[in-house]
């Protein structure tokens, strides 16, 4: 008996060793390094200052909380952070509003069309992320048809022309575009499993089509909604390529700051601090939303 159990355990270890090594080596250790760097002094020419400080014959540890002090008092970091959260929330909401009807339509269409529509959702992944953003730069560019139409309309109403590209709007448009599949796919996976009989029962018991949607479809798809929102919101906060390519000075996000600290300003400790603040905040927001969701009925059903 015991031998069998032991054998089972060792098999488990052998099987899980590669992913464990991978995660420890490439995720856990770098994360711990980052935390460690957050407490170091910045070096004179980038990187970090030596850990041990030799002066006047005595040796002291060269650690500091300056990075954290700065991060929590600097209005600039908080402004960027707040902006990232706002952009991410707007992106998530737009993705949900566009994604839900799409996912519902795909889930309700018949088998052949359904596979084709799912393919359409996935096709953008076949081309490089940067290339897709460059494509948007052309679509939103000053000489583009979209730009011309928007500015023409603005002109009729007596407004001055605007730049579509290099604006916060462009950042949000691209964030929505990049993240939409991550909203549609979990929603589809959820909606597709809904029992048609439940909607029929709802109609049968006196609910109109619209009421059935709000009373049955929406609550039952809550787990899908939360999964989709999580998958969109979390990566969105740390995004830096999109604002860098299509944004302006007023649409810089926290990811840009982190990148700047590491690559341009060469202030590694401050970059680390900012990263830690961001990671912890995202974690806190996710836990809070999860907590709210667990108090509603939908998740109870999902956890069955």
């Amino acid at each position, binding site marked *: 008996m015991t031998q069998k159990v032991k054998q089972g355990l060792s098999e488990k270890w052998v099987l899980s060793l590669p992913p464990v090594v991978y995660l420890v080596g490439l995720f856990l250790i770098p994360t711990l390094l980052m935390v460690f760097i957050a407490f170091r002094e910045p070096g004179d020419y980038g990187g970090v200052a030596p850990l041990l400080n030799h002066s006047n014959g005595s040796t002291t540890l060269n650690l500091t909380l300056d990075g954290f002090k700065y991060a929590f008092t600097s209005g600039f970091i908080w402004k960027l952070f707040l902006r990232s959260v706002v952009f991410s929330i707007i992106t998530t909401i737009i993705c949900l509003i566009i994604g839900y009807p799409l996912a519902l339509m795909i889930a309700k269409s018949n088998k052949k069309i359904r596979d084709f529509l799912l393919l359409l959702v996935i096709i953008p992944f076949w081309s490089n992320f940067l290339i897709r953003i460059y494509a948007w730069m052309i679509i939103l560019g000053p000489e583009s048809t979209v730009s011309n139409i928007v500015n023409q309309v603005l002109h009729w109403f007596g407004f001055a022309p605007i730049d579509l590209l290099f604006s916060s709007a462009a950042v949000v448009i691209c964030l929505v575009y990049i993240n939409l599949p991550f909203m549609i796919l979990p929603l589809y996976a959820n909606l597709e499993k809904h029992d048609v009989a439940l909607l029929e029962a*709802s*109609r049968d018991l006196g609910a109109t089509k619209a009421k059935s949607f709000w009373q049955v479809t929406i609550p039952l798809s809550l787990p899908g909604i939360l999964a989709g929102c999580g998958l969109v919101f979390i990566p969105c906060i740390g995004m830096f390529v999109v604002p860098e390519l299509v944004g302006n000075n007023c649409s810089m996000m926290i990811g840009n700051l982190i990148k700047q600290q590491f690559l341009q300003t060469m202030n590694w400790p401050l970059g680390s601090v900012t990263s830690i603040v961001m990671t912890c905040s995202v974690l806190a927001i996710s836990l809070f939303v999860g907590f709210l969701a667990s108090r509603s*009925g939908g998740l109870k059903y999902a956890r069955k």
Partner: protein
Amino acid sequence: MAILELKNIVKQFADYTAVNGVSLSIEQGEFFTLLGPSGCGKTTLLRMIAGFESPDSGQILLDGKDIKGLPPEKRPLHTVFQSYALFPHMTVQDNIAFPLKMAKWNKSEIDERVREQISSVQLERFAGRYPHELSGGQRQRVAIARSLVDRPKLLLLDEPLSALDARLREHMHVELVKMQEKSGVTFVYVTHDQSEALALSSRVAVMNHGVVEQLGTPREIYSHPKTYYVADFIGKCNLLKAKVIDASGENVVLKVADSFELTINNSENKFKLGLDGWFAIRPEKIKANWDPRVEEGIANFKAKVKGYYYYGDGTLYEFLLENGTVIQCMLSNNRPHQASFFEDGDEVYISINPLAGNFLVE
């Protein structure tokens, strides 16, 4: 007056005709059953009454009014689904309150009626539970309670017991009949289980290939099947080829299975000389003995025991006639001594009372 009237309903799907001209009239307070194999159109018929499908032609009259154009939510009737279709995100209480909320009852009235309804199905202790925390039988009771809470004119039940195990199903038979009697609501019940149909219904419509083959009380359907299909589908039945060989008198003589003759009544003068058909007789209506039974009108003939199935309360024998025809006979095991049972190969006398069977014309 009939509460529900179906007039010549036809429903065609892309590749087949599901319902082909069904007319039925269901009385207030009836327990009416649509019985048939899968694909016979019974569920399609039910879905048309509920409003999930619309008939290609024909009328559906509820209380004399045509409801064909009404969406499901506007029809004063409810359906109990095969899968129960309880809302998984709502408690028992909320599930049962759903129809009342949709009908915009006020809060205190809803509370009162729901409490009443929950106690009528003895689920007081489970009011706050979710459907996945209930057993199959409890879910079934919630589904019915939910459908009866606003006292609909009609309750449609779509094979509601098929997901339950045999014991629970029998228990639910009793409960269903009780609920129906207590509520006074007309039940239209769909099933493929003939014993369920016989045990529960006040009337049964046997359906096949989109038409009603026979309509009648369970007794009529079982004892006097009108077609080969009905005789074969309901219960066990010996269906023996038969031909009218003498139609000179008030009675006609049948040659059954090319081996024995039976005299049957022909007062309605339906049977002509040379008419082909089937003589249908239930296994339990055939007797078998060591000696022939000498009685007026009873036909006796010799047969050999081919084999038997012991069921506990009875034994089903298969007898072989000389020309190879097999006749099944159910003998009740109410005899005190095992000795009176027959064994394989025994030669016995079978006796048939022609009144116990039916001559079905093709």
